[in-house]
């Protein structure tokens, strides 16, 4: 009787069935876990205690105090240490027979290339952001490794199996995810009307201009309407420049007053002087530094802790001045420690960094006072500024266990039994599931044909690719384009790169290029090549396909626009969770109710779930023959 008594007794059939199929048993499985946070800690424990043989963990994050309410592999003494390394250390003790490798790195680093992904039997996504999820999805498709994708938000959770061949499931990008919300520059800088506008102003403009780089790269600001308001934009630009100049007096006693008077008085007065703007709006009212200073003298020093209360103007003022001082001191210290000649010292907003949060909360509320907008508590502002997603141990425990259960199906190659599993707050079900869906035929990621390309990058030119490989070997016509990760390399109008070599174009090993066919008839699906560098004999062609490549054609039907709001493939995205069951519009529900109540027989409204996607698997198939 050993430590695996329970597992052997219960999992016996799994071991056996796997053996019969001559597949690796669990203790020989080599798996990758991307992310060692909430789901990751639970998942690692479950994988280790289920007896997975070799587990690799990648996470670039470090441990924060706010992780400790759920990420149980970490303790107070681990704060600021690498999640991946500490997780390995803590979990390794549970089962000495398991081999764990940890990387304190970004999964997007070039060392984690397609060939590396291909060494794993299963990949688990335990991530908290869209970008990394999409990257891993893409790599798993390219490496043809099954992916178990998961996410949680509060009490909701979701697990999805993604598999390119055998099963042919929907991939992570088959469903359009809502992009993060952004606001026009003028709304943020000149005409705010909601608390969120002032919060974005505090975080992406004021904080960024004083302590960071600049507002220009803030994702919350969109510049689509800039051209319509060219004059105002120019003025706003001058304002930013003036604010930057004030930055130089950081550290002086007068600094808070200078900043305050600039943004809460002078800029407001300038805005107010533009009378046209305020014909139909309540004009903003500048704040007075001296007066607020006096009122703020009576504010208790515990004010910043009262994060559930909505502060008065004076309280906000007190927090503003104090947080500005704290941040200035930090900035001075950073500067003193930075070697001259290095990049300038900057601070970045972090929702869990009290100094930055206090500053943004107080600035946002002061601005709300000016514009007559409702002010918010620091607790609420933290959520809005930091896009905080509530997270708890219970949901993570359930979600991680469901990942492992789905992994069992993957290991048995029972893709017909694998499911998309949801945790919902509904108490009628607790867990609900639906069969995996077929891929979206217009998915920009998985509907493409993928292959590697062996390239002698010092010798091969773009012309070799265009003329010899694409036109001659693969039968492309005149209308197509070649895109790299940075932009267009070639299309019928863009031919000046043709004589450049791959090296000169920066196309190195493991970079991707996409070929987009624009022919009117029998349009080929997009082809994504990942480049493998190889020195080839001078007498041979400098670009080779590793095998025969068959490229399917795009479906004829007027397909919904890629990235459009194609109804049938649109999930709202939070932390990767899609609100449980796919929802219909609220209105449809109501009409449905009405119809039911009146006992009328009517055609049910079109429901996303009812749409049947035609699986054009035969056409889209990729066949690479080894020869």
């Amino acid at each position: 009787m050993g430590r695996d008594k329970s597992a052997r007794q219960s999992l016996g059939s799994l071991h056996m069935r796997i053996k019969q199929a001559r597949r690796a048993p669990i203790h020989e499985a080599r798996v990758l876990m991307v992310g060692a946070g909430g789901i990751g800690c639970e998942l690692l424990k479950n994988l280790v205690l289920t007896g997975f043989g070799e587990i690799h963990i990648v996470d670039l994050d470090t441990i924060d105090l706010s992780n400790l309410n759920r990420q149980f592999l970490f303790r107070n003494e681990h704060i600021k240490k690498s999640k991946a390394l500490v997780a390995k250390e803590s979990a390794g003790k549970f089962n000495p027979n398991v081999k764990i490798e940890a990387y304190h790195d970004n999964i997007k680093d070039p060392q984690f290339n397609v060939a590396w992904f291909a060494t794993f039997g299963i990949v688990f996504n335990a991530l908290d952001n869209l970008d990394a999820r999409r990257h891993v999805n893409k790599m798993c498709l390219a490496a043809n490794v099954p992916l178990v994708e998961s996410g949680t938000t509060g009490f909701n959770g979701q697990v999805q199996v993604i598999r390119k061949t055998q099963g042919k499931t929907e991939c992570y990008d088959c469903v359009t995810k809502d992009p993060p919300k952004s606001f026009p520059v003028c709304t943020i800088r000149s005409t705010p009307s909601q608390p969120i506008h002032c919060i974005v102003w505090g975080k992406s403009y004021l904080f960024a201009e004083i302590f960071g780089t600049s507002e220009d790269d803030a994702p919350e600001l969109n510049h689509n309407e800039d051209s319509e308001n060219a004059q105002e934009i120019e003025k706003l630009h001058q304002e930013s420049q003036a604010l930057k100049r004030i930055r130089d007096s950081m550290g002086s006693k007068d600094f808070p007053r200078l900043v305050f008077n600039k943004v809460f008085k002078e800029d407001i007065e300038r805005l107010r002087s533009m009378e046209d703007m305020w014909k139909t709006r309540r004009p903003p009212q500048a704040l007075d530094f001296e007066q607020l200073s006096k009122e703020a003298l009576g504010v208790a020093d515990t004010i910043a802790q009262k994060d559930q209360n909505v502060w008065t103007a004076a309280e906000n003022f007190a927090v503003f001045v104090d947080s500005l001082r704290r941040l200035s001191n930090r900035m001075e210290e950073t500067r003193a420690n930075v070697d001259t000649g290095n990049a300038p010292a900057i601070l970045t907003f972090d929702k869990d960094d009290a100094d930055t949060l206090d500053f943004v909360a107080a600035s946002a509320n002061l601005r709300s006072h000016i514009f007559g907008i409702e002010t918010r508590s620091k607790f609420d502002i933290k959520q809005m500024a930091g896009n905080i997603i509530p997270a708890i141990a219970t949901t993570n425990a359930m979600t991680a266990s469901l990942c492992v259960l789905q992994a069992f199906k993957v290991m048995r190659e029972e893709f017909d039994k694998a499911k998309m599993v949801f945790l919902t707050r509904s108490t009628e079900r607790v867990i609900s599931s639906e069969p995996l869906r077929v891929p979206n035929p217009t998915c920009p990621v998985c509907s493409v044909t993928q292959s590697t390309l062996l390239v002698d990058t010092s010798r091969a030119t773009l012309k070799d690719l265009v003329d010899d490989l694409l036109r001659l070997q693969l039968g492309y016509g005149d209308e197509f384009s070649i895109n790299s990760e940075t932009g267009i390399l070639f299309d019928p109008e863009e031919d000046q790169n043709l004589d450049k070599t791959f090296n000169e174009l920066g196309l190195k090993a493991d970079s991707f290029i996409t070929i987009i066919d624009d022919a009117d008839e029998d349009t080929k699906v997009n082809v994504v090549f990942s480049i493998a560098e190889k020195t080839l004999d001078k007498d041979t062609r400098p670009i080779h396909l590793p095998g025969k490549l068959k490229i399917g054609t795009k479906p004829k039907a007027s397909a919904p626009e890629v990235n459009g709001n194609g109804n049938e493939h649109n999930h709202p995205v939070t932390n990767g969770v899609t609100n449980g069951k796919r929802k219909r519009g609220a209105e449809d529900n109501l009409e449905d109710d009405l119809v039911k109540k009146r006992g009328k027989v009517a055609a049910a409204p079109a429901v996303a779930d009812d749409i049947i996607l035609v699986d054009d698997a035969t056409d889209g198939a990729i066949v690479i023959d080894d020869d």
Partner: protein
Amino acid sequence: MADLPPPVQGPTAKEKKYDRQLRLWGATGQMALEDSHMLLINSGPGVVGIETLKNLVLPGMGNFTIQDSAIVSEADLGVNFFLEEEYIGGFRAEHTCNLLKELNPDVQGNFITEPIDSWLTQPDSLKPFTLILAIAPIRPELLARLSAHANATLIPLFYVHCVGFYSHFSVHLPSAYPIVDTHPDSETTADIRMLKPWPELLQFAKEKTSNMDTMEADDHGHIPYIAILLHHLEEWKKGHDGKVPQTYQEKTEFKTTISKAARTNNPEGGEENYDEAVAAALKSLKEPEPSSSVKEIFKVPECVLVNKESPSFWVIAHAIGLFYTKYGVLPVPGAVPDMKARSADYIQLQNVYKSKARKDVMEVLESVRFLERTTGRETVIEEKDVEQFCKNAAHIKLVRGRPFHVVQAGETIKWGERAKSIAQNLTFPDTLIPLYIAFLAFDEFVATHDKDRLSGAPKMPGETRQETDTEKVTGIAFKITDDLIKEAGTFIEEPDYTAVKERIGEFVQELVRAGGAELHNIASLTGGIVSQEIIKAITEQYIPVDNTCLFDGVKSKTEVIRI
């Protein structure tokens, strides 16, 4: 230069640590969690109990106590992640308790290694606890004692099985378990009262829509949609004998009228505020009638017959019942959905709703105070509780908790009023009721078998003899099934009857094959579900599972049934 205010203090470490969960259950929920003291009666391989506790220690449950007289063996190491080689031979309760405490220094942990039989018979042994979690296998007379305690003291009792790929839990909540803060979906909480406007709201709409035809484009595009809806409703009433749209056809017509009123001669080809009005049109024509389950609450005896001792929930519910009787609606919750509007208008509209909500709260509060006086109630109900109740009035919930089955050797299991519906559902091809019956049979086996003959630890089926145990448990399960069908006064025809027995047989076989062993992954999942339900019970927020949940790990499937 004026003096600057003094420096302020930073947030406490505790607030930072619990930030992500405070956004779910708030400061009051957290306080309830910190005031709780849970007893875990651990048994069997003991994994699911510890996994459950882990998920409660992390978010900061105040106190826990583990009762477990088992000694750590090598088999524990493979499934219980807390235990390592060095603890072999020690008390499992002691080591798991200490290791759990390491997860969160704010939590107090205790352990009891005295055997459950003698410990439980001591007077007041259960007194400190606000919630009890019992893990199978447990002797029926002990489980019955816990159930009686839960009944008498109104504390929640959870009972959990976790065997192989399968698990189950039942919860025994107090017979009247009301919840104010059910956390409804934000989509269902907007209650804008278009059909029951009050003078100030009508006045607002009139102001914002007067001369709307001659308005500048920018102004027209910023009329709050609530004003647009009310304006068109008033117009409609003029042409329909003062009646609002009644039939589906009329409602659709009303919606069309609004969408036609939008201006389209602008670069966008439409107006966002009108889009919002159209989207809300049908919904706003629904009478703001409380749901039947809420109306039911006003009629239950606890609500009708409020006395000196009544919990505050019933006093406030009674007062709101009076309000409903008088006006035919619940108090206005007061929140206004986001909409396209000038900030000044939006703020004005918010105030219209807020002051009406405030007025309604004051009226309910007056009734509450009256009830307090007439019943001679000793403690005063806080105004903020009344306010909170009014805000959530449309979503309050009453759960009627009840005891779960305690299987006694040789006694027939009683299903009572549930017999009929459960017997009916038994034939559904996907139901997990057969699994529940298999667990009941498992319990009856436990009730009649000891590990040694000295009534030591209970023995689980399959621990030593697979085949004979499978036969025994299958026999018990079939008898339970037949008794259930008999009690329901129904009959299951062939081939359904054989199919039901087959499924029960399969579940029994799987349970016995596991030999009482736990799979870590299933224990972890079950621990997740159970701890989540415990958090609901402690915080008295969210709607709990009522009252039994089954999990099939082969199919990743759950089913909730009321037993």
